[in-house]
């Protein structure tokens, strides 16, 4: 059924309720291969919940998620990762006691083949045996992935490379965000979900991050982005979706959305402080 120009990711009527609160309310979304769509909206609009639904950390009460035309609604995060969906987390979830190298290697976990033979039932036992015996194929695979990780970490320039053997808990906040993105890239994702990648970064760090995301887009990666810094959103996105109280209230090219009265209402209606924050960020 996968047509030539079918969207890579499409959501239909996606809904998630927590008790009386509808955190995500009938969201439709299409993301073409190689495209970059941003989701903006006030705090509590349901953006991160939407990410959780797409990546399998939470299950929708209604609606469906399609990836390359296949229904992936409610699949486990492990399965979705294996299909090539990678994400970063809003508050940062690096593995604190693992080195930068090991953190990013975990990102490449779904690419392990030699040490993880796809055999049913006894597969895990073979994995244990191969991990202990380490035949040449397993060693070669590990070496290949390590080289790969170094190349990915090198994309962040001198920020991360000198610290590659340090435990992640010793890194600065911005560097931990970078490790998360490096980990996501190590999965060689077909779809990348970035949840506020520049949160807590200063202007120059934000600019670096923006340049990196632009570069990833040029390389053809499909990206779904949650971001509060409107300037970045305007420059990067093919399309912008605005959420408020779980609903999609506007969708379209950046400039059109920016002047939409409903969008301005949503931000101002949630208190001037929120709007002021947006202006500062922009």
């Amino acid at each position: 059924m996968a047509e030539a120009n079918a969207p890579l990711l499409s959501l239909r009527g996606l809904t998630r309720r927590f008790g009386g609160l509808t955190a995500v309310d009938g969201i439709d979304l299409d993301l073409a291969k190689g495209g970059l769509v941003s989701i903006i909206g006030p705090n509590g609009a349901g953006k991160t919940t939407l990410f959780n639904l797409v990546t399998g950390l939470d299950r929708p009460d209604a609606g469906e998620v399609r990836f390359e035309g296949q229904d992936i609604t409610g699949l486990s995060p492990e399965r979705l990762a294996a299909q090539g969906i990678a994400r970063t987390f809003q508050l940062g979830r690096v593995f604190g006691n693992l080195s930068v190298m090991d953190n990013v290697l975990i990102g490449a976990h779904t690419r392990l083949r030699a040490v993880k033979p796809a055999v049913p039932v006894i597969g895990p036992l073979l994995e244990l045996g191969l991990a202990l015996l380490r035949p040449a194929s397993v060693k070669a695979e590990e070496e290949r992935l390590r080289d790969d990780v170094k190349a990915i970490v090198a994309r962040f320039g001198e920020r991360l490379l000198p610290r590659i053997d340090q435990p992640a808990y010793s890194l600065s906040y911005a560097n931990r965000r970078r490790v998360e993105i490096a980990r996501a890239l190590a999965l060689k994702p077909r779809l990348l979900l970035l949840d506020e990648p520049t949160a807590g970064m200063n202007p120059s760090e934000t600019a670096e991050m923006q340049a990196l995301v632009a570069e990833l887009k040029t390389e053809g990666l499909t990206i779904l982005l949650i971001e509060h810094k409107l300037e970045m959103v305007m420059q990067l996105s093919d399309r912008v979706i605005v959420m408020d109280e779980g609903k999609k209230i506007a969708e379209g090219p950046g400039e059109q959305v920016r002047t939409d009265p409903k969008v301005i209402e949503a931000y101002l209606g949630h208190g001037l402080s929120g709007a002021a924050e947006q202006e500062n960020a922009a």
Partner: protein
Amino acid sequence: MSSWLDYTINGLIVGNVYALVAVGLALIFGVSRLINFAQGSIYLVGAYIGWVAVVQLHTPLPLTIILVAVVAALVGLIIERFGLRPLQNSVRIAPLLATIGISFVLDQLVMLTFSPNPRALPSQLPDVRFQVGGGTIGPLDLLIAGVGITSALLLFVFLRYSKLGWAVRAASQDRDAAMQMGVDVNRVNQAVFGIAAALGGVSGMLVGMYYNQIDTAMSLQATLKGVVAEVVGGAGNVPGAVVGSLLLGLVESYGVAVFGTSYRNLFAFLLLVVVLVLRPNGLFASARQAPPEPLTGTFIAPSRPLRIPCWALSAAVAVFAILPLLPVSFYVLQTLINAWLLGMLALSLTLVAGTIGQVSLGHAALLAIGAYTSALLSLTLNLPVGLAIIAGGLMSAALGTILISPSFRLRGHYVSIATLAIGEIVSLVILNWESVTRGPIGISGIPPLSLFGYDLISPASIYWFAFAVMVVLALLQARLLSSHLGRSFRAIRDDDIAARAYGLSLNRYKSLAFIFGGFAAGVSGGIAAHLYSYINHETFNTQQSILALTVVILGGLGNVVGAIVGAVALVGLPEVFRIAAEYRILIYGIVLLLLVRFRPQGLLGTI
């Protein structure tokens, strides 16, 4: 029919007693998200204070109750102030370990003061029975019911109408918000620990009177039962704890009615495991909850592990390998053999609790499975001992992993509860499955260690055998840790949600960790069985589980060399200082407390 009414009354009365313990646990969990493993020790203290009051001071009943409540509350306040408050900003596992340490210290202090022999605790009430319907009820039943209902009412009034009660409820809903609104969380904690301890103490005294007997084994049983009732009702849910307790009392009472007394605890722990698997948030929680927030604190203490150079390790191995050739006494070899056996168990536990973060409190069950398998195979099938020990390791790996698997979906403190319960279940099955395990009689005449047809009789040969097995297991584990499995295990420990998002299946990797760790523990148990020549269901008990945990924390969680260093230190140092056996457990408890407080990363650091 009348006997059923009796069993119902008995179930409700016992449930009432559990409720006094469980409500305290629920209050504490509500405010500080901590399962207080020391609750049973306070219950024990309550029972013995009651004994002192009744037998030595001859106080009247109301005064006895007040005295017990006050002393127990004081103990609770001391635990909160000196045991737990210093750990407020510590890693998440620290307070749990501290309550385990406190419980060991309190139990041992009671045992040293009053001797481990059971004592009678007379009830001071007239021994008459009233006919109720078809059953009978005595004054003590009424007293227990009365104390239960009165405490529930007092607690309700306190929580509902007093200012401090409001603060307790606010803090249990949202601790941070309560603090920002000016609630003094330390005072709330004090209040909660004081109340919980008073209820626990009175409960211990009432149970002592009910069975007219108190002994130090009551403590662990009370903690377990209270935890079961609390988890069944939903952790932190006070009315839920009451209902869970009554339910537990009834389930036990009917279970005893149908199957017999030795099944009582089995029903309690099966109920716990079923609830944990089907409704981990308790019977009264909504089925689906919001996904948990990202965890702010790390589970284990971050540290830079001490790297011991390869030549130093090789030298140490060489020294210990040639030790039997040197003029050392039999006694030294014997002590070190014990250290190597404990070292194997610690290797297993440091992988499971340290590397993949599943703090198991029932690890001795794996020893028992290995020991029974090896002993029975060599006795009944005449399997060579070497093969039987390997079979014991494999059985521990397989059976242990299957038994633990219900807990794979649980997190944090719940894992500890589940493993504790599963450990108890294993011991109870061994006790009750007489056709296979020979029940309470145990297994005697287990053939001695032998290898390729040669019996290992001399201490030196046993020493070499145990040492070699341990070194091989340690090398294998070190190799495992340096593979992709090592980083996968540690990633799951640090953040299981992020790990899943990157394709790591929790079931798969937790199983692999338990399979590998189960093998090491099973081999240790197997060797022990042939060394002791006699085992029963109590040979491998919770004390050993906790000792192994102390060893692992002493060495540094996940640290292979640390596990062995810890085992040698905890087995060897008491021997060096010739510390009497009854003080050792006390010292282990104190060591655990000091470690958690001052060096949570252990001697060599967590990995």
